[in-house]
């Protein structure tokens, strides 16, 4: 404490060495809750100090470091180097199950591709929300296919390689057909006895037809 007082008294007559002044600027910029102007620095430092010059040295010292001395308006502050900004973010990844609507939409696209939104809606019996399609596109599980050569030229959706990778499929043709789903017990209801000339069978044909369109290129 006495040493400090002595230093201060001496400094009335002789400014501290530039290295010391640099230390002072460094400490003040670090601890201050707001950017500090040169005149504020000057007023805090012992008489005879040159805050502006000390800043030049300090700035140079931090060049290429993890933090840098930056000008904010007419004041100065220490900030994280821009290229390290990502370290200030802590990413927590949360895995959630895809919604039922998204799974069904994805299933229809994978079995019927290329398929238009109107067709998806017809199969599902409910409208398909934009968010659901966007989500699947964002996940890179579906993408836009060729436009349908019908009035309005609607876009079609097809599944991506990322989709096949995720589900461990070599091609969308590897997806099990309705008969297999049924024998695997995945169908929730029995068709009524007789009278069901298999909407599945013609659907299956339709789907392979659709897929062939895609895969034959």
């Amino acid at each position, binding site marked *: 404490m006495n040493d400090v007082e002595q230093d201060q008294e001496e400094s009335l007559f002789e400014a501290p060495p530039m290295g010391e002044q640099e230390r002072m600027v460094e400490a003040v910029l670090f601890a201050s809750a707001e*950017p500090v102007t040169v005149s504020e620095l000057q007023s805090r430092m012992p008489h005879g100090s040159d805050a502006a010059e000390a800043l030049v040295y300090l700035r140079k010292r931090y060049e290429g470091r993890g933090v840098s001395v930056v000008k904010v308006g007419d004041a100065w502050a220490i900030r994280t180097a821009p290229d390290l900004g990502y370290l200030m973010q802590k990413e927590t990844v949360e895995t*959630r199950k895809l919604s039922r609507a998204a799974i*069904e939409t994805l299933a229809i696209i994978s079995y019927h591709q290329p398929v238009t939104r109107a067709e998806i809606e017809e199969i599902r*019996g409910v409208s398909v929300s934009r968010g659901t399609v966007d989500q699947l596109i964002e996940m890179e599980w579906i993408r836009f296919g060729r436009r349908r050569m019908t009035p309005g030229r609607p876009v079609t959706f097809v599944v991506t390689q990322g989709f096949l990778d995720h589900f461990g499929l070599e091609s969308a043709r590897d*997806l*099990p057909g309705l008969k297999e789903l049924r024998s695997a017990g995945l169908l929730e209801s029995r068709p009524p006895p007789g009278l069901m000339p298999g909407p599945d069978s013609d659907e299956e044909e339709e789907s392979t037809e659709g897929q062939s369109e895609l895969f034959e290129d």
Partner: protein
Amino acid sequence: MAEEQDFQADVVSVSERMAAEALIVDVDGFEGPLDLLLTLSRTQKVDLRTISVLELAEQYLGFIEKARHLRIELAADYLVMAAWLAFLKSRLLLPPEPGEEGPSGEELAAHLAFQLERLQAMRDGAAKLMARDQLGRDFFARGIPEDVTRVRRVTYTATLLDLMQGYARIRTKDEFRPFVMDRESLYTMEQALDRMRGLIGFAGDWTELTSYVPEGWETDPAKRRSATAAHFAASLELAKAGAIEIRQGDTFAPIQIRRKPDE
């Protein structure tokens, strides 16, 4: 009186006497008997390790007497300590009786000295601790902390099973009806009722019930049975409601119906 004299004898100099009086005035300022003992021990002006516990005990007892004399109310623990020190004093002064149980006077005195020394050490430690450079006073943390922003990224996942179940769900939704509703070969009474309500307006004359059976239901025996029964039940409903009249000429004769003539 004698006790007071004892106390007076202990107080040698004027300054010590004044200190003793200050102690009395401050009696509430002490943090218990141990604190008081530690303060009194300072008058011995020796290292706490070589303190005379006997002398300290006498000082304390004298202090308590003085306080009593001045009618200062002392907390119970001061009096407990006084009683204990009086006991200690007697142990230290008198040789232990043969076969006496419990710790010796020296052991008790040593522990009291230890307690005082330890308390003093903790006070010195506290003083040294508080004399250290302190955060926010002598050294400082970052003034503009750049907080870590927590980015929560949600990834969605699904399994092949989810996908297949989803597809199966859609493809079977249309087919799925409760089993009882599944009656391709059945004609319900409700259907027949609907049909007959539409047709009965034109039937002013007696008409055979069988002629109401819709096309396509007369040939297949199962369908014909179902449709006939439905229409018969429906005609009974209509007759009950007073919309038609119903008759049968003979057993197994054709049933005939007609619209009920307007009154």
